[in-house]
């Protein structure tokens, strides 16, 4: 009882405990703000990283998976799988219009509609009409305010209307940083330099390979640029070029074809019914099915990528059995979640490490709160030495005296952490206006959209993180108070009474 009373009295009207509370407020707020923003940043990257590849990838490079339509049907019939899309991944060259030069790129052949069902590709297309200018785009210079709806459709189908032939023509959609003609400005939208890339044409060259991986040809073809996409992952946005699946299959000789007899004599001549001589026609001995190197899967609502991966492995094994050696063996086909893919793992791993490092640094700095509380309590125990002697003289136990100061630390930690959470909530929820104000008033842009690829800073606080920080703040204060509290309890009451 006396501890409650004295804690309250010691707390009110004194500068030192207020300073300790302030230290706890600052430390908890600092950690929670950094953690929330970094975690938001990471979540955004994860969402973007996942954007181009769905939840799970079934992959057999070079040779590709035949009868993939059948496999996709099997996969889509499973309740764990929401959608599946065939793709081909292959290295290639892209010759840009002047002065772009030629670039080594990752070519991805996709079937627009199914790809959209798996990845929400539609949302990644950069050039599509927007209703409102970005907050910082006061002059409404963003070209997206003026682009036609047709650009979205052409980007999505990877086909563009050719006025000369009046037919749809296969097109490419490139990452926004592939061409080098785009720059992001501080307002957060993209400015086009030299030329507006989606009005241009490019030449894409790929190398069809044999079953054994040997180059058997060079295929080059002109494509119009239908649109550009932005995932937020720089690597994908700077190197990936999407091509309509059928076109890439043709270029890579992965489309459906007829197989003729091996020993056919191309110079053989035959006579028809009228006695005219013609070159002999080969006999078709088999149909070679079209192939794709990857099948991307989207998990159904509430299904984790890992669950879908395991299910997809089982489905592929059944498919392998059913096709009786006509498809790559299930033991060797890679079925991975998007996070398990090497490029993603490296990138996300780096960001996670960066966040852990930042948190460790700020957490370490936050330990100063514990030291500050410790120093303040040390001073307070010295100041209150005689009180401790009095308490002991009237029968307070050593534990009772220790609890008095521990309780005091607990209250400081509790109050400080509560205010810390309130401050961080206020800052994180308003971080964008604050950032904007800092930029305008002081010219400080900590999260420059030119660099970070996002126009709004993530502004969400997860309750679990907030509770961890709260517990940490209270715990640090308690640790800070523990040593002075133990010291206080060990004071010789007679000496304490004589203390001046």
């Amino acid at each position, binding site marked *: 009882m006396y501890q409650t009373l004295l804690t309250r009295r010691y707390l009110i009207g004194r500068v030192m405990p207020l300073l300790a509370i302030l230290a706890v407020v600052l430390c908890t707020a600092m950690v929670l703000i950094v953690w929330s923003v970094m975690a938001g940043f990471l979540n955004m990257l994860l969402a973007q990283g996942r954007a181009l590849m769905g939840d799970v990838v079934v992959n057999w490079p070079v040779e590709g998976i035949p009868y993939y339509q059948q496999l996709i049907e099997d996969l889509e019939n499973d309740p764990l799988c929401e959608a599946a899309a065939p793709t081909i991944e292959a290295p290639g060259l892209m010759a840009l219009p002047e002065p772009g030069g030629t670039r080594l790129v990752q070519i991805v052949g996709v079937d627009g509609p199914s790809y959209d069902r798996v990845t929400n590709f539609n949302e990644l297309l950069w050039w599509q009409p927007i209703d409102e200018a970005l907050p910082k785009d006061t002059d409404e210079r963003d070209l997206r305010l003026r682009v036609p709806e047709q650009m979205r459709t052409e980007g999505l189908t990877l086909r563009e209307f050719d006025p000369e032939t009046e037919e749809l023509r296969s097109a490419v959609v490139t990452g926004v940083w592939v061409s080098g003609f785009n720059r992001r400005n501080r307002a957060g939208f993209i400015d086009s330099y030299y030329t507006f890339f989606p009005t241009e044409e490019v030449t894409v060259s790929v190398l069809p390979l044999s079953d054994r991986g040997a180059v058997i040809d060079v295929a080059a073809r002109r494509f119009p640029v239908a649109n550009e996409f932005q995932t937020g992952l720089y690597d994908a946005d700077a190197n990936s070029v999407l091509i309509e699946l059928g076109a890439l299959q043709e270029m890579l000789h992965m489309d459906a074809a007829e197989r003729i007899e091996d020993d056919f004599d191309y110079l053989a001549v035959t006579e028809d019914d009228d006695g005219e001589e013609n070159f002999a026609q080969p006999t078709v001995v088999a149909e070679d099915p079209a192939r794709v190197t990857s099948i991307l899967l989207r998990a159904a609502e509430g299904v984790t990528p890992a669950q879908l991966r395991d299910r997809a492995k089982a489905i592929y094994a059944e498919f392998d059995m059913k096709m009786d050696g006509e498809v790559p063996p299930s033991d060797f086909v890679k079925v991975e979640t998007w996070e398990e893919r090497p490029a993603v793992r490296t990138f996300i791993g780096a960001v996670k490490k960066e966040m852990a490092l930042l948190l460790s640094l700020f957490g370490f700095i936050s330990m100063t709160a514990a030291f500050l509380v410790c120093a303040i309590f040390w001073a307070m125990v010295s100041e209150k030495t005689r009180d401790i002697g*009095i308490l002991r003289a*009237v*029968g307070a136990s050593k534990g*009772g005296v220790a609890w008095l100061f521990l309780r005091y630390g607990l209250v400081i930690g509790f109050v400080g952490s509560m205010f810390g959470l309130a401050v961080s909530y206020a800052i994180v929820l308003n971080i964008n206006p604050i950032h904007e104000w800092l930029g305008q008033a002081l010219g400080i842009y900590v999260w420059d959209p030119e660099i970070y690829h996002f126009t709004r800073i993530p502004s969400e606080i997860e309750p679990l993180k907030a509770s961890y920080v709260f517990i940490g703040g209270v715990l640090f204060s308690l640790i800070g108070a523990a040593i002075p509290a133990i010291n206080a309890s060990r004071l010789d009451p007679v000496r304490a009474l004589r203390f001046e």
Partner: protein
Amino acid sequence: MTLISAHNLTKTYRLGRVDVPVLRGVDVNVERGEWLAVLGASGSGKSTLLHLLGGLDRPDKGSGSTIEFEGRSLADMSARELDRHRNTRVGFVFQFYHLLPELTVLENTALGSMIRYGRIGYRMKAGEVRKRANEILTEFGLEHRLRHRPAELSGGERQRTALARALMNAPDLLLADEPTGNLDRKTGDRILESIERFHKEHGQTIIMVTHDPLIAERADRCIRLVDGLAVDGADVDAEDHVALSS
């Protein structure tokens, strides 16, 4: 009936590298309801004797010192029992009042009861405790000062508050360490009158340390500490009166 008896009390303080013996075998015996005055010069070990008798300090180890309270040795008590002993059986009054500056007069008085009953017990007995504190403070003429802090009180009022705190839990033994030493004669006399009244009306056992023979005269019996030993009260009077007259 003997309330407290101490035999061969020895206490040595260490000042730097030097051992300074303060008590060198003091024997004290106090009957229930008796008022014993302990006289002695400054540094003679009066306060030390009081601290030892009150269980606030322990005699030298291995010295053969014993302190028995109602026949039970304080040395045999655990730390918890000793805390309880100080809380319920003994009341301390100090020369410099030693009130907690953050608490009001009422709270200072009730401090011992707060410790005694604990958090839950105190809540159940809060009314009772407050009533007792009010009574005792009224008895000491402090009924108009209940909500005041020590800094707002005169020296006499502070000492009366300290006295009320010491007597709050109705201790068997009141240990007063020069309770008037920091007060003017008139105020000191009022405090002594209060103590005397309590002694007479309630049969309170008192051990009071003082260097003033006139105060000691109010007690039933006196001893004097000389060279770390207790000398009988008869000699005390003679010596001190000589000292005073000179």
